């Protein structure tokens, strides 16, 4: 009995297929971009191929993430918040707080002792504290996004970046550079700013051990260190930080079947693409 979860984020689309023992049969990560309704199917097919399955062979498909509404072949749509919680519950049962730093938004999720969502927060209409913030600044600095983490670790001090508006932080960064601040100091300052914002947002859920960081942000070691600094203790990082949402979706599908929810078999494989 295989189950699939597909997580369509703003920058990445992830798919996972698990069996009835909840062992991962296949996982795929691809870019989202404008044509994501097209790519959703592409990524799904890749995963099916890896698992040696056909879509008809899947007992349940759950879609989550930004693009969840536009997945014609999914049996159900669930928000990434519930899915992250479900995924983490399976991976790291001791976790009580999830900090997810995605491309478009960052979330804080509080789990109860059964690993169910007890409360959550999302950044409100401001990109500071999201991956995009770092992306934009990385562009300005002419630094590769995946290098930011290592670079910041080489800094002894950080410069304060007070502007939380991404566009205006760019000015601040460039004027700091003009003042002679080093790139590592600035990158460290950015991590400091984002960590401060995100941790502060999560704080009003009540900080509680263990804390896990997921999403693209978890792959930035500098940012993770800055977060640990603010939280005051080490945080956990899942083996595949990008996949927790998709995994949670697949497991949620299993839960549905257990609860006797029958999948809608009108799964449509049409390739709705953006530019046609």
């Amino acid at each position, binding site marked *: 009995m295989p189950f699939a979860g597909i997580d369509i984020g703003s920058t990445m689309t992830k798919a996972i297929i698990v069996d009835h023992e909840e062992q991962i049969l296949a996982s795929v990560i691809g870019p989202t971009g404008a044509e994501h309704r097209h790519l959703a199917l592409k990524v799904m097919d890749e995963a099916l191929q890896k698992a040696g399955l056909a879509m008809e062979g899947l007992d349940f498909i759950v879609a989550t993430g*930004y693009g969840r509404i536009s997945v014609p072949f999914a049996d159900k749509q669930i*928000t990434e918040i*519930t899915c992250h919680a479900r995924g983490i519950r399976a991976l790291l049962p001791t976790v009580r707080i999830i900090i997810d730093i995605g491309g478009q938004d960052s979330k804080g999720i509080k789990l109860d002792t059964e690993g*169910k*969502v007890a*409360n*959550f927060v999302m950044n409100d209409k401001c990109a500071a504290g999201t991956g995009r913030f770092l992306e934009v600044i990385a562009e300005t600095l002419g630094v590769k996004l995946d290098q930011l983490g290592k670079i910041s670790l080489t800094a002894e001090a950080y410069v304060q970046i007070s502007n939380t508006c991404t566009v205006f932080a760019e000015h601040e960064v460039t004027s700091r550079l003009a003042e002679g601040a080093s790139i590592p100091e600035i990158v460290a300052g950015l991590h400091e700013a984002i960590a401060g914002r995100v941790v502060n947002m999560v704080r009003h859920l009540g900080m509680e051990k263990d804390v896990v960081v997921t999403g693209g942000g978890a792959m930035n070691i500098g940012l993770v260190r800055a977060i640990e600094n603010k939280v005051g203790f080490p945080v956990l990082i899942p083996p595949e930080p990008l996949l927790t949402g998709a995994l949670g979706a697949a497991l949620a599908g299993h839960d549905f079947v257990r609860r006797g929810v029958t999948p809608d078999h009108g799964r449509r494989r049409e390739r709705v693409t953006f530019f046609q």
Partner: protein
Amino acid sequence: MKPASIQLDELYVQRDKHAKELRDSGKKVIGYFCCFVPDEIITAFDMVPYRIQGSQNKAIDQADAYIEPMACPFVRSCFNKALKGEYDFLDGFVAPHSCDTVERMYNIWCQNKPAPFNHLINVPHMMGPSSEKFYRQELDYFVKSLENWTGHNLDTGKLRDAVRLYNERRAVLRALYDLRKSDPPLLSGTEITAVLVAGMGIPAAKHIELVKQFIDEVKGRPLPQTQKLPRIFIWGNELDDIAFINLVEECGAWVVMDDLCTGTRFFWEDVPETADPLDGIATRYLYTHCPRSNVPQTKTRAGDLGNRYSYINDFIKEWVVNGAIFYIVRYCDTCELEGPDLREYLNGMGLPVLMIEDDYSTSTIGQLRTRVQAFLEMIG
């Protein structure tokens, strides 16, 4: 004859249609802000009270040249319509001193888009005997300036009738709300919002007649799908568009009760019938439940919250609510200071709360879907 549901819907879509017709037939239409300008007084002068609304589905494309963008977007949207001439049909413009922004807007409005009659009613922020007296005197002054403008004296008999009329409308609307007590409720929050907003631009008598018919129609129609869904209470300020409540219900919930400027806040309590009707009116309107009004502190914090929110407690018990969503139109200082207090109180009763701050705009609402759906998944 069209069914009331259709007529109400048309009025909701074209809020000023009927008011304009009445004006063409020689009636005077008086526009006003918020919940502190008594319809009864305007009606007693044989004029049509018109609750000024903005357009959540239209961008604010003129107002910024007159008022700062960090002002309440609802008020800015209303003024934006005025600048475009969409309120030129108003014979009068009345603003209560409900909050800093509305008070400021009164002067900006009068100096750029004056109506033939303009008046500001100063509403006390504090509540107590001396405030009642002062507010009553402000109403006297309002009556006087209406008398000067219209050339007619206020007819106390007509004022009494108006009080009865509006109390009847309140009763009818409460009866409509009662239809949501059952599970599933007989009608959606989206429908209710449209019905309430539709009534803000027409004489009470017509609204009463339509709502009565509508109630019969609702009772007559088949029960909605019976799948068990969370029952939501909405708190906030101006929600004169169905978009947000519709989103909540689309995500799988029933909006069964509210405390909104465009909901129970403006009609729930009756005006007591007093010897001098203005006394009853003053009391009723002064004690309108709005964050801008300061309920005197009673002893301890717990007692104070209980005292401030007991009416919400009743709502939640009677309408069997499972969760509360706050929808705060950004830059409303009093709501933003009240929200956390109310959340503390509701959480204390074990009721989960989702607090949302948003622009007064339907096109941002899509971005709230994840938040709302996750909240429903959490409590469901």
